[in-house]
């Protein structure tokens, strides 16, 4: 079993829908949680970053972390065709003073007009 599980999709939604993207993890040492967006043939770009359990909001994006359930989510409100991309969750734990990142495989999102 992979340390970070993420459904690859694709997830297809109409414009304006609320999108929910999720990851589960097994390593309780993960302390820091991130969501990246990756457009085709581009590098990942950081969308959201959080440490504690609870919600964090930034514009149309809300990141949610539930450490007790080892579950994180990203919600996108009023989705736009420009949101069509692959969304990767990522987590870090500390080992020997270094922050070791582990990524999910990404969920492909398609927002159609």
């Amino acid at each position, binding site marked *: 079993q992979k340390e970070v599980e993420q459904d690859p999709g694709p997830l297809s939604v109409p414009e304006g829908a609320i999108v929910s993207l999720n990851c589960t993890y097994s390593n309780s040492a993960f302390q820091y949680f991130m969501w990246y967006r990756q457009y085709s*043939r*581009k590098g990942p770009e950081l969308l959201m970053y959080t440490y504690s359990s609870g919600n964090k909001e930034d514009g149309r994006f809300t990141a949610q972390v539930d450490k007790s359930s080892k579950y994180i989510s990203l919600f996108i409100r009023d989705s736009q065709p420009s949101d069509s991309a692959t969304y990767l969750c990522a987590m870090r734990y500390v080992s020997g003073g270094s922050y*070791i*990142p582990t*990524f999910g495989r*990404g969920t492909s999102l398609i927002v159609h007009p």
Partner: protein
Amino acid sequence: DTAVSQTPKYLVTQMGNDKSIKCEQNLGHDTMYWYKQDSKKFLKIMFSYNNKELIINETVPNRFSPKSPDKAHLNLHINSLELGDSAVYFCASSPSAGNQPQHFGDGTRLSIL
């Protein structure tokens, strides 16, 4: 201005050859990384350098050798290329080795014939 730039963008070569990928960042960051993204889109960290010092070295064949001539550059040399090395290699940088967001380049697509 490109923050993290990689060259070449595409690399097609024969099995058994030796090749290098270069990465440069103009963000003034202290820490740089190499990641490998395989065909299933899993993004895995390979190496990290902080101020030219190796701080993360994941389980990577010793055919892969990173070199950091200065803080702004991190190159990746690969000896005796194998079919399984075909992937997209991403370079990234962050302000420090602490828990900082990472900025990614757009990747080098390596194909082994």
